[in-house]
């Protein structure tokens, strides 16, 4: 029993932040009687020029942002070491930097990573999450002025994986953060893609795709804190659900603070229900404390499969199951196309196709 968490109160499920999550399935990550093992869980798939990965003591590299997320708080308490990835200032990295998970045991673990993008650097990072981890995971992004990062987080976890994650970007003046979150694997994934700004002219583009089948719980809780003037954000998440008790949750919190004049924001979530018994929760939330903005909007739709599309394709000889696959691929194409990798696109679509076939949707 850890002394660190002696006054820790595990969530009951009545808290706003946990009301959708099946707490019985979080594998001890939130359980005060379970210690989390500190792990350096991210490695480079190979070496890249202008990219440095090092391990530092958690005390020497404290978190750059505050969080009230219980999984994050617990992870921070148990961490001994953190992983630091640095993109050199003024570098432009031509190929995507591929990160892989390592050292995951299947016991309850905690990991924290800081990704620092140097001034005016330009890079794309792809994180591949595979295997059956039980992980409380925090990744912070420190974007120096003028930097541009595209971060692609692929949750291709195994069927037993539990992933409670926070991916928080602090975006400074004239920096751009593009995030593409793809969640197709895992038993329970609860991800918090969140951003705050530290200078004007900064911009965030948060795109996401999730696909849940039988019994999977995939939850994405976005939070955009417009805490500086003249920053921009776009959020676009699309989800599809098939099979019994597939459950997805999308929360989109956007705050425009009183000082955030000139804010330009729009968030969108669309869900496609492919079978009965699946449930998609979608809660957009926009809070505006100043009227001096460029624009703010949100939209959320949850619909069933469009039979007219299916009829149109079938009337051209395309068998119903091929037509369904085409329509689902089409639904996701907008997000998947942004990854700009044919290999990843094919791998994801094949996984989605095979899982669709399994649940007979």
């Amino acid at each position, binding site marked *: 029993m850890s002394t660190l968490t002696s006054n820790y109160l595990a969530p009951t499920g009545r808290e706003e932040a946990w009301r959708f999550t099946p707490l019985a399935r979080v594998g001890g990550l939130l359980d005060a009687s379970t210690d989390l093992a500190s792990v350096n869980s991210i490695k480079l798939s190979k070496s890249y020029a202008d990219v440095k990965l090092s391990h530092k003591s958690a005390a020497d590299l404290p978190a750059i942002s505050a969080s009230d997320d219980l999984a994050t708080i617990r992870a921070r308490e148990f961490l001994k070491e953190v992983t630091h990835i640095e993109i050199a200032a003024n570098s432009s990295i031509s190929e995507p930097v591929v990160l892989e998970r390592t050292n995951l045991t299947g016991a309850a673990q905690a990991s924290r990573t800081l990704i620092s993008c140097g001034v005016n650097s330009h890079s794309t990072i792809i994180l591949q999450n595979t295997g059956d981890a039980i992980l409380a995971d925090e990744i912070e992004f420190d974007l120096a002025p003028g930097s541009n990062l595209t971060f692609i987080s692929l949750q291709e976890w195994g069927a037993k994986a539990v992933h409670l994650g926070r991916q928080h970007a602090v975006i400074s003046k004239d920096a751009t953060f593009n995030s593409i979150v793809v969640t197709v694997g895992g038993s329970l994934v609860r991800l918090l893609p969140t951003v705050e700004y530290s200078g004007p002219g900064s911009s965030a583009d948060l795109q996401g795709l999730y696909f849940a089948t039988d019994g999977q719980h995939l939850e994405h809780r976005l939070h955009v804190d417009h805490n500086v003037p003249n920053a921009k954000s776009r959020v676009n998440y699309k989800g599809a659900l098939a099979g019994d008790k597939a459950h997805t949750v999308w929360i989109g919190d956007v705050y425009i603070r009183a000082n955030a004049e000139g804010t330009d924001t729009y968030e969108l979530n669309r869900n496609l229900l492919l079978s009965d018994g699946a449930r998609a929760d979608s809660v957009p939330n926009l809070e505006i404390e100043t009227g001096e903005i460029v624009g703010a909007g949100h939209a959320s739709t949850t619909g069933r499969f469009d039979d007219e599309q299916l009829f*149109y394709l079938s009337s051209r*000889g395309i068998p119903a199951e091929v037509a369904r696959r085409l329509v689902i691929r089409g639904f996701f194409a907008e997000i998947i196309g942004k990854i700009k990798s044919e290999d990843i696109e094919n791998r994801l679509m094949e996984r989605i196709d095979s899982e669709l076939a399994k649940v007979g949707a």
Partner: protein
Amino acid sequence: MSTLDIKGLQVSVATENGFTEILRGVDLTIKSGETHAIMGPNGSGKSTLAYSIAGHPKYTITGGSVTLDGVDVLAMSVDERAKAGLFLAMQYPVEVPGVSVTNFLRTAATAIRGEAPKVRTWVGEVKEAMAALHMDTNFAERSVNEGFSGGEKKRHEILQLELLKPKFAILDETDSGLDVDALRIVSEGVNRVKANSDLGIMLITHYTRILRYIKPDFVHVFAAGKIVEEGGPELADKLEEKGYAEYTTA
């Protein structure tokens, strides 16, 4: 030589107040190479006839039969009907976001032909057909029907007709929403397919305009869910002059 035979076809749709009968016994036989114009006022059930033959799930067949060379079409799934040689150019083609025209056409051709078309000849075939319909090559990369103008949607329907080479085509108000140039281009496309393949055509229209470009062998007047008068091309001239009044007030 093929025959599409429609006998005593009765069709209903589900509404809030139960089933409403729309087709009240349609009899029509079309042979390869023949063009039959179906002309009738709005709401007379022309699209219902077209959709019922194609197998749209919204329509319930309550009586009669549709056979293609003696084989029961109504027992087939939607894609089987297309594979058997039926094609419906829709009045309102459906948008399919994220599915490119290229991918769609190739998937459809693969399904209809039973094997994937050879890449080299296929690309040329599509290009040629698009050029003949005055379609810009950038159409190939756009999503199916998404953001297409009315005229572009109709050209895209006829492009599919050219590539899928059915035995029978049902053209549901292909002329509506087309300007004179587009009407000519689309009509030439239909005539080209017919010249090359002995296509049988059911040409559904409200106006006689398209019949100047696509010459019907037979004209059928459609009103209140059935054929009420039949004749040759001269019947269209009478409709041009007098309209549908005598059929709807009766």
